[in-house]
């Protein structure tokens, strides 16, 4: 009974909102409709409507997929300090981190759907009905850890909210093991995603053991950047107050993870270019262009400039601890990493092809529309989840006996 009223109260609460809320959701919906249209187009015409070819067959979708797995894993930067270091400011907002992880994983799944040549046959992956190439296929592992992470965060997040809603105490024997599993699991999703591309000797640009740690470093920089931005927006627009201490800790985490990421980028450049074998051609294409093709060169240098500048800004305490200035380096680092880890990592892996062909990839309008639509869908979900969570945390939605009441 209480569970039913939890669901109905939750739904009723998220349906109500200010005009600003409705406008925001409506504009996201427009983009989502656009995404559906191009998804239909892609699955009737084929992938020819995208810029992908047999030479460069992973593009914008795969790039966003990889990046968003990082954002999902980044949620652990809230959960870890909250439960391991008992950080008070973080503890109050842990559930928001879990909500972010849920929406990021949903976005990842949508990008998987967009990437597939035959999404109608995805059931072939379901064990027993189809065939699941486990444990050989790294993609199989990736699906496993991503689905597991989604379930873990859903249980942890909504169990906590439900307890808050009915006003009871969290059952620690049940809850704490799940929290610690989800912390380790967060690392696993990004490690496995890194393995997905790092285990291909055919693609020398990706074939190195630095990939997982680099993925995690960039994830723990980009994820908290988004979380900081979200927290600042929440402080402005809702009754919920996120403690300064939480934001400061996140800024510190971003600073050092960004520093490590830059260090790893530098290491890669030195190692690859000292002798510059043919295996360095991918990186060379990214940084300087190859055989006159320079499609990604401006992207790379923009990304590097953004990341370095953001790092310097984060290093200055006056910027890092100033919540008015903080969004600037956050946006810079977030977009810098989005480029570096997305297009900047995936596309040069295919240039040149294993037989030495140098071609370029340009995302088409269809791909951009799909990508923006999926992000819009992610933000749509995120807004709902945040709104519901904040309502419960603030005590606006709570169980009121037989007759559920929603305070406005």
């Amino acid at each position, binding site marked *: 009974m209480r569970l039913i009223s939890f669901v109905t109260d939750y739904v009723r609460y998220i349906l109500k909102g200010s005009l600003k809320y409705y406008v925001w959701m409506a504009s996201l919906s427009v983009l989502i409709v656009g995404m559906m249209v191009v998804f239909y187009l892609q699955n009737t015409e084929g992938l020819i409507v995208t810029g992908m*070819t047999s030479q460069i067959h992973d593009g914008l979708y795969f790039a966003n997929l990889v990046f968003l797995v990082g954002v999902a894993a980044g949620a652990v930067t809230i959960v870890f300090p909250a439960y391991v270091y008992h950080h008070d400011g973080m503890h109050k907002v842990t559930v928001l981190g879990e909500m972010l992880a849920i929406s990021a994983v949903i976005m990842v799944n949508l990008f998987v759907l967009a990437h597939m*040549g035959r999404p109608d046959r995805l059931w072939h992956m379901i064990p027993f009905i189809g065939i699941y*190439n486990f444990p050989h296929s790294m993609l199989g592992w990736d699906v496993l850890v991503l689905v597991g992470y989604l379930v873990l965060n859903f249980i942890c997040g909504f169990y906590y909210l439900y307890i808050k809603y009915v006003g009871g105490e969290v059952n620690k024997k049940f809850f704490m093991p799940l929290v610690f599993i989800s912390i380790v699991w967060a690392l696993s999703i990004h490690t496995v995603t890194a393995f997905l591309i790092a285990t291909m000797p055919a693609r020398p640009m990706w074939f190195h053991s630095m990939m997982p740690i680099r993925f995690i470093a960039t994830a723990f920089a980009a994820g908290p950047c988004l979380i900081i931005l979200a927290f600042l927006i929440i402080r402005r627009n809702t009754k919920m107050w996120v403690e300064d201490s939480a934001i400061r800790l996140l800024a510190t985490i971003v600073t050092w993870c960004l520093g490590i990421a830059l260090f790893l980028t530098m290491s890669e450049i030195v190692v690859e270019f000292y002798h510059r074998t043919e295996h360095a051609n991918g990186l060379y294409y990214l940084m300087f262009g190859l055989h006159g093709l320079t499609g990604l060169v401006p992207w790379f240098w923009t990304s590097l400039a953004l990341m370095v500048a953001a790092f310097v800004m984060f290093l200055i305490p006056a910027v890092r601890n100033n919540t008015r200035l903080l969004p600037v380096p956050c946006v810079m680092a977030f977009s810098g990493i989005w480029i570096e880890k997305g297009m900047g990592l995936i596309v040069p892996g295919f240039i040149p092809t294993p037989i030495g062909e140098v071609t370029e990839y340009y995302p088409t309008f269809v791909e951009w529309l799909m990508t923006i639509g999926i992000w819009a869908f992610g933000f749509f979900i995120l807004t709902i989840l945040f709104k519901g969570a904040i309502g419960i945390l603030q005590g606006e939605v709570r169980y009121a006996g037989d007759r559920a009441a929603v305070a406005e």
Partner: protein
Amino acid sequence: MSTENKAPAETVLPASADPAQAAAPKATRRDFLKAGGVLSLSSLMGTAALMAQTDDAKATVEWAEHFQKNYRLMTDEEKNEARIRLERRHSAEYGKKVSVDISGPQAGVLMGYALNVRKCIGCRRCVKACVEENNQSRGSRPGERIEWIQVLRMERGEFSEEKMNHGYPEGLGIQVGGNAYTPVGQVLEGQFHYTPEAVPEKDATYMPIACMQCEKPPCVKVCPVRTTYREADGPVVIDYNWCIGCRMCMGACPYWARRMNVAKPVLPREDMNPATHYLGNRPRMRGVVEKCHWCLQRTRQGRYPACVEVCPVGARKFGNLLDPESEVSMILARKNVFRLKAELNTFPKFFYFYD
């Protein structure tokens, strides 16, 4: 020519791969219903749709095709049903009698291939013959033209006295063997887009590549649904009906042997080769991956692959690796043989040799 890959006489051949003698089994409505009586999800779907008196045979067949199992897990009965379905659909679509062979591997056969790099003249007749034999897409939009064989043109470099102290070259893929700005020695990075007036060209050598049919294929390992696998007689094949189009295999292949059908393949009726094999050259659909399979529709019937047959200089050799008397086995025993990218431990069954 050798006789090592002649099919034993007692083998029952469902359909000849030779278009001239193609005698496809009759696929009547009654047969189809009878076959559909076997308990399987796919046949139930197909029969149910037939019972519902759908006029459009193609839609019915496609619906049943959607729910069929992975080819490897099908019983012989189900394989036969799948064959009949495909023959019906393709015959209707291409307006000719299309046969879909489902004959399996024979015991004691391990297919192998050897290519004489010294003999190849770069004429690319193999590329053309392959496309015609294997029903590849031949459209004009980018990505719609698919070729499984690439002939890489390699430049011969030069050493010249006046340039000997000019420092190392700046270009790419150039062996830094001496000091010169021009390519030195053989340029190891080939180019498959070339338009010569005549072949062979004086300043070039040629290196044809295609699927290496590895014994330890990276593409098979990464496939999340096991739609691509090694057949018992050697070739790595794809069940096109089971492929989800994730393209992991394409990323894993070190020889760039795999192609994506980015659109519905463009295959004009008159050009369609009606003698097909289920795991081989039957027409593919949108969104799936395809690659060379050593012309299973021919080789399982004791014929040579199209590229071997068409090669004007006899650079291409094909045969049974388990038969010590076969041409390929003799080459492996006696010639200077190497494998491409041997350091990756993929163990290709496609060998290069020179006299």
